[in-house]
């Protein structure tokens, strides 16, 4: 397979460059550093050894045979090959992901340093727009609680504008769709929760120790109640593009979006902002939710 040949080439060049920069290195260290088996390292050293210049049997790369016998890579000679630079796609992948984490407010210190090094070496391969709106003291408090395995008390407002105080076992910060969230066990809900950092007004580190371990299955666990289909003029398309699991089709001057609804009131709130462009909504329970919400708005705004 093409991809495997490339991976192997990158690994071989990686081993060569690593040993050139760090000096004699046991096979076991190389295996651990690159996340491969010791046998793979040995095979790659052999392949590097066999590399040849055009037209003659001169080996541009030579390792010590004695060291090889004791499972150590010791470079005797390397005539001018080394790891190759990042491709445009690779550069965008790394810088894009790290910058997005930074803009969300969940990039560790080491990430900022790595990003600086990459940007200096690569010239900016992608533009990432967005400001970190997370207060530093809030992030520091969460990280301090996580690293010391302490509980935290949060002043939190959810997407439905309900304000609560929650005591949580904090686990880690995670970036989802460009926003920073805390993965935690919430004592109030007695379940795992993912809470958005921008919705926290304050964080207090408590003395109590974390009792619930992190889980692999955390994330958004909203159960869809029903599926909805909304026809909207193209100008209103943007309000539907972020709906969970949405599929959008063009239909003449309109688009038709189909998506899952977990909370009808929340979806109705989103639809209100593009109401002048709405053409058709199914099922009726979503129409009813929209009407209820619109009447409540008109009761106070005229």
């Amino acid at each position, binding site marked *: 397979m093409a991809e495997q040949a490339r991976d192997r080439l990158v690994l071989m060049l990686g081993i060569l460059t690593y040993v050139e920069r760090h000096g004699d290195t046991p096979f076991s260290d190389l295996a651990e550093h690159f996340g491969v088996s010791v046998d793979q390292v040995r095979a790659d050293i052999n392949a590097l050894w*066999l590399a040849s*210049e055009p037209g003659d049997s001169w080996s541009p790369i030579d390792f010590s045979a004695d060291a090889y016998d004791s499972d150590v890579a010791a470079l005797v000679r390397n005539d001018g090959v080394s790891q*190759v630079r990042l491709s445009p*796609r690779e550069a965008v*992948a790394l810088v894009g992901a790290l910058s997005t984490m930074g803009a969300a407010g969940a990039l560790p210190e080491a990430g900022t340093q790595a990003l600086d090094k990459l940007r200096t070496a690569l010239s900016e391969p992608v533009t990432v727009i*967005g400001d970190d709106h997370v207060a530093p003291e809030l992030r520091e408090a969460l990280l301090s609680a996580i690293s010391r395995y302490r509980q935290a008390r949060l002043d939190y407002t959810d997407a439905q504008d309900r304000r609560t105080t929650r005591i949580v076992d904090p686990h880690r910060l995670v970036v*989802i769709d460009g926003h920073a969230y805390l993965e935690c066990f919430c004592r109030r809900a007695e379940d795992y929760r993912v809470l958005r950092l921008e919705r926290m007004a304050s964080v207090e580190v408590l003395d109590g120790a974390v009792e619930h371990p992190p889980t692999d299955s955390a994330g958004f666990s909203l159960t869809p109640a029903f599926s909805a289909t909304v026809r909207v003029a193209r100008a209103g398309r943007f309000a539907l593009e972020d709906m969970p699991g949405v599929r959008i089709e063009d239909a003449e001057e309109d688009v038709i979006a189909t998506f899952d609804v977990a909370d009808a009131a929340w979806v109705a709130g*989103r639809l209100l902002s593009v109401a002048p462009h*709405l053409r058709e909504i199914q099922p009726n329970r979503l129409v009813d939710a929209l009407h209820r*919400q619109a009447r409540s708005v008109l009761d106070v705004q005229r």
Partner: protein
Amino acid sequence: MAQVSKPERLLNLIIGLSSTRHRLTRDHIRDTIEGYEPLPFGASEEDVRKAEQSFERMFERDKKELRELGVPIETVEDPVHGDEIGYRIRPAEAAMPALDLTAAELAVLGIATDYWRGAVLGADATQAVMKLASSAEHGPRVELPFAALPAVAGDAFATLVEAVADRQTVRFEYSSVSSGAGTRTIEPWRVVLRAGIAYVIGFDRDREAPRTFRVQRIGGAVAPVGETGAYTIPQEIPLGALAESDDVRTARVALRPESGHALRRRGTPAGVDGGWDLYDVAYAHADAVVAEVLALAGGARIVSPAELAQAVVKAATAALEVERG
């Protein structure tokens, strides 16, 4: 002779093209680089033709693969030797600059690969981390309490990234908010990410002006058309609607007690009015404030400016006109 595997052949090709003082022609490459089959000696014309074809195919694939890997292969023409094309790699341009990453920095890059997991750039991110590990220090495994959930990125995004690097025009089907679905031909200038959403900014050939496209609205494949290096990317790229607006105004909103917490946090208290708390809130986009007030379903109303209040009324009135099916 022992069988030379593909990665070994690619390594020999890099060594050969990097060590040549001037250039290597295709004939040189076929006959002297280990891993390719030299033309059979004394073979029939038919066999020679077959061998030539099979070499051509193999070499074209290898060249493409090295370029995708980030290795710049230069084409060198030499007037003395007629029209036969030669190739070389400049070692300084091909080599990865030594970034000397710490073990912690390398661990963060591992999180960056999670960000693209399952998406088209996933393999690229993994390979990039492997490359950077070559000059990183070896240390104990660093566990960081950070993570990133996969972003959405399709083949279209990856093709656009390459087109920007190659300065090659592309064509795609696009569903526009203002002008409907249609074919667009653009010279892509830059890829942009905002809040996890991918955009491309480029020069729209048909509209003869710079345009911004949301990658998610591209239907089907992005097709490169024409030559590489076909245009110049301007120094200053207009971010258009993606830019953070400098034009910030203030709205006064009235909030019911225990509601509008997000607005309260961003705003400044401006007294009370009957059962309502008043706040002054800065905003760059009127639509965003209107949407926020609408979503609070009666928990908030706009006091001023009047046009925002009208927009709220207009939207709610229109919502009541949507009929039950």
